[in-house]
C-alpha cells in the first residue's frame, strides 16, 4: 500500500470505514452479550473502533471481522473488568473452576433426553445466553449469532480450535439444559 499509516491519512481512513463500518451491528451485538449492559456496550464499541483504526496497518489478514471481534473482546476484558456492574473474570480461571465443579447446574444427567427442543421467543433465548458463564457465552454468541467458523472463533478468543470445539460442546449442553427448563415455565 502506498500510504504510510498516519491517522489523518484520508485514504487509510476511507479504507478503514469501508472495511469496518459494515460490521458495526455485529460488533455491538457481541458487546451487548459480553457486557450485558447497553451503555457499557456502546462505550466498548467506540473504544474498539478507536483502537482498530489506530492499529489498522497491523491487520494482515483480509478478514477484518474476527480481528474487530478480538479487539472488542480485549476492550471488554481489560477496560470493564473492574467495573462492579460487570462480573468479568479471567476466562481460563473460570473454566478451571467450572470443570472442577463437576456437573454444572442441570446438565445432562437429569435432562430427559427424549424431550424435544421447542422454539422460544428471542427475549427468552437472549436471557438464557446472557446467563451462561463468560467462556461459554462468548463461543455460543460467536458461533450461533455472529456465525463465525471454528477457525475464526479460535482467532477471536486466542485458543486452539480443539479448545473452541470442547467449549462449544459444553456451552450447548448448558444452554440445552436451561432451554428445557425454560420451556416448562410459563413466560
Amino acid at each position, binding site marked *: 500500500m*502506498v*500510504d504510510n499509516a498516519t491517522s489523518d491519512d*484520508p*485514504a487509510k*481512513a*476511507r479504507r*478503514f*470505514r*469501508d*472495511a*469496518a*463500518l*459494515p*460490521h*458495526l*451491528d*455485529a*460488533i*455491538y*451485538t457481541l458487546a*451487548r452479550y459480553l457486557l450485558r449492559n*447497553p451503555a457499557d*456496550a*456502546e462505550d466498548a*464499541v*467506540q473504544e474498539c*473502533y*478507536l483502537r482498530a*483504526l489506530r492499529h489498522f496497518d497491523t491487520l494482515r489478514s*483480509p*478478514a*477484518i*471481522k474476527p480481528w474487530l471481534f478480538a479487539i472488542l473482546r480485549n476492550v471488554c476484558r481489560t477496560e470493564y473488568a473492574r467495573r462492579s456492574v460487570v462480573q468479568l473474570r479471567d476466562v481460563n480461571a473460570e473454566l478451571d473452576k467450572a470443570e472442577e465443579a463437576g456437573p454444572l447446574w442441570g446438565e445432562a444427567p437429569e435432562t430427559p*433426553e*427424549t*424431550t*424435544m*427442543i*421447542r*422454539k*422460544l*421467543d*428471542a427475549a427468552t*433465548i*437472549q436471557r438464557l445466553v446472557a446467563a451462561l458463564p463468560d467462556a461459554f457465552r462468548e463461543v455460543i454468541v460467536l*458461533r*450461533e*449469532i455472529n*456465525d463465525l*467458523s*471454528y*477457525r*475464526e472463533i479460535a482467532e477471536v478468543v486466542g485458543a486452539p480450535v480443539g479448545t473452541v*470445539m470442547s467449549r*462449544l*460442546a459444553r456451552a*450447548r449442553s448448558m*444452554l*440445552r439444559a436451561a*432451554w428445557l427448563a425454560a420451556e416448562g415455565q410459563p413466560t
Partner: protein
Amino acid sequence: MTCDESEVLLHALLDDELDAGHARDVEVHVAACSRCAIQLRQFRALHAAMSTTDLRFSAPASLRARVNAVVPATPYPVPNRRMLLKGFALGSMLSAAVAASLVITVIRPDQDQRILGEVVSAHLRSLQAEHLTDVQTSDQHTVKPWFNGRLDVAPPVVDLAAHGFALVGGRLDYIDGRAVAAIVYRRHSHVINLFVTQGSSFGQGATLKTVQGFNVKLWSEQGLYFCAVSDINADELQEFKEKFEAATRPGAGP
C-alpha cells in the same frame, strides 16, 4: 468412534466443520448409538431455533454517530484519483469539490466495469476449460467445508434444486487478483456462477448489469459480497438471488 468423541464431534458435524471422512465416522456412530442420535437431534434443533430467531442487536443511532466521529468520512477519492484530480484542477477554474465529485462519477464506473469484465471472463473460463468445478457434488455439506482453509471466507452454500437451481459444486477462482469462492449452479442447461468474496471488489449496492450478453447480479449481505453471472434472463437471475437469500437466512430479520 466412542460416545466421548462423538459428543464433541457431533457439534462440528452440525456446524459443517468436519471433513467428509470424519463426518462419515460421526454419522456411522450416530446411526448405531441412540443416545448420541438424540443428542444430535436436540443440538440440531437448538442450532436451528437460534439461527431462525433474530438474536442480534442493532447499534443505536447515538453509537453510530459516535463511531462516525471516530472515523470521520473523508470527501477524498483514493490517491490515484486525487492525483488525477490535481492535474485537472491546475489548468482549470473548477473548485476542488466540484472536481472531486466529477472524478468520482467519471472514474467509479470504469473501476466497476473492469471488475465486471473480470467476472464475466471468469464465468467464460469456467465454461470452456473443463474446469467448472474443483469439488463436484450436489451436497452442500461437502461443498462448504471444501472451501475451509482455501479461503478466508466461509461462503454460505445451499442446494436450491427444489427451486429449480441445482447445486453442481464449488471452485476456487480469482477476481481482481484475489481468491474468491465460486459456487456453481445449473438452471436447465444454463450454468450460474455465484462468486463470493469478503472484500468489496464487486462494488457497492445491489444491481443488475448486462455485460457481453451475460446478466450479472450484484448484492452484499452480512459482510459478504455476492456476484451471480449467467446467460439466463434477468428475471430468473433475480429469482435465483431471492431464493439464495431466503435459503441462507431462513426467517431471520433484517
